């Protein structure tokens, strides 16, 4: 229960039917904070904004849909969408605070290591 589900290879990702239009952004479907942070910090800001715009337009619908599933038992398409929702949280500071991908004058992100196996972490 405590280890994140492995991310599917990008080619294998499917999203729930109602959210298939988000497929162009499925490279943001990443299972761990480490991967999401790296994606944010290595993406062009315009690409981050495009992802944010697409997700934000549907965010309440995504949340309402995913709320119908247990966090520790999400089928792969719902988990894939959940990871994209977590990526939206990941890019929030980039677009709402810094106006650039990384933290302004910040400590090197890759030196601040998220413990993906921490025993008290949530199931997803």
């Amino acid at each position: 229960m405590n280890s994140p589900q492995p991310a599917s290879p990008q080619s294998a990702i499917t999203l729930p039917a109602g959210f298939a239009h988000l497929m162009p952004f499925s490279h943001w479907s990443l299972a761990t904070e480490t991967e999401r942070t790296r994606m944010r910090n290595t993406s062009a800001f315009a690409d981050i904004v495009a992802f944010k715009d697409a997700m934000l337009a549907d965010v309440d619908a995504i949340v309402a849909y995913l709320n119908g599933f247990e966090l520790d038992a999400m089928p792969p398409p719902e988990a894939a969408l959940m990871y994209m929702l977590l990526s939206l949280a990941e890019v929030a500071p980039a677009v709402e605070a810094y106006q650039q991908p990384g933290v302004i004058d910040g400590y090197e992100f890759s030196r601040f290591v998220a413990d993906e196996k921490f025993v008290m972490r949530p199931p997803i």
Partner: protein
Amino acid sequence: MNKVIKLHLHDRYPELGKGPVPVEPYISTAYYDKEQARIFKKTWLHVGRVEEIPAAGDYFVKDLEACEASIIVVRDKQGAINAMHNVCSHRMNQIVYEKRGQARKFFCKFHGWAYDLQGNLTGVPEEGSFFDLDKCDHGLSRVACEVWQGFIFINLDPTPELSLAQFLQPMFGDIEGYPFDKITTGFQWTTVVNCNWKLALDAFQEAYHVAYVHGHSIADAIDTAEDGAMPPLDALCGQFHRRLSIAGNPKSVYGNPNAVTAGGAEASKAIADSAVKKPIAAAALRAGMGAASYHFRKEDLPKGMNWTGHENWLFDINVVFPDFYLSLRPNYFQAYNFRPISQGKTLLEARVYYPEMKTAGGRFYLEYMKVALRDVLLEDLSTLERTQSAVQTGVKKEMILQDYELLVRHGAHVVDRIVNEETKA
């Protein structure tokens, strides 16, 4: 607001003085050697939460360079938590190689000596070939281990001068009862920072830096005075420990964490103001409302929290001597250890704990809050190595502290007092 009578926090603590503070303790190896001997090997040190090792045989290992020790922390069959040195009684090999795991017994991989979960020696291969070996005399070396409010502390001193309760209660007795046991979803980050441990901790012991270091991120979450300053609500300094109380801006999502569990008016304040400026923040708050596994009410908090009773109270910083930073909010808390590896190297283990969220929306809110906090930490950490390098130039011998940096002064004062106590070895 009121500029007529300016009362200083410092006035309450005349023994701390108001003058410049020497920076030699940040860069002196001789000073660090004394800190190791007189503080880190003699003081209660926080090593984790009881929820990390819920079942008998669950253990973790802490390598404490500051104490030159590797310590096993394990729950035994009676439910007690024990700590012992990770050193075999036979020929000293480390008993446990993994950092975390589950064991029925500990077996040394060198010659197979076996120890139970209390450290008793229970098995010796070819026992008859040893000379008058009494297994009762050769258990693992135990280390004092006590629990306060679910936090596990160890003490390398074989006969600690104070019990953990005696150590903590004078400053923190009236925050006992905070719902730590309801806030059981945790995240951890680690990093090794090339700076002295006190310099790292100091960056977290005042809010004067917020408008600058956090000017792009959470400065809007802190309550500001008319002149733009962010004065703390109050500060408390004791024999070892210290506290600082901070007010938040209820119109921001990050500055009003109560909104997600209180809902209602609290939430609408935060959502209305954020919807335009920070739409992801507002979406996360909408998603998170009602998702927590436990209903938190400000009025249920122990009386020592928000001890000034301020309506916009955001959080209290609690610094547990020597190196444990515990920041308590109405419904989540942060626990950071600034543990020295050497004079100029510090291991930061930063954790944040939230209530368990039952829904995807609640999980989205947690991720928003966690990422915002993590980026704030990246801002906090950005100055440390630069400051350390600057101190090491030797150009400046002292730092100048303002009233609201009282905790920095108190931290330096307590360390210096203990380092210079001649009676201790």
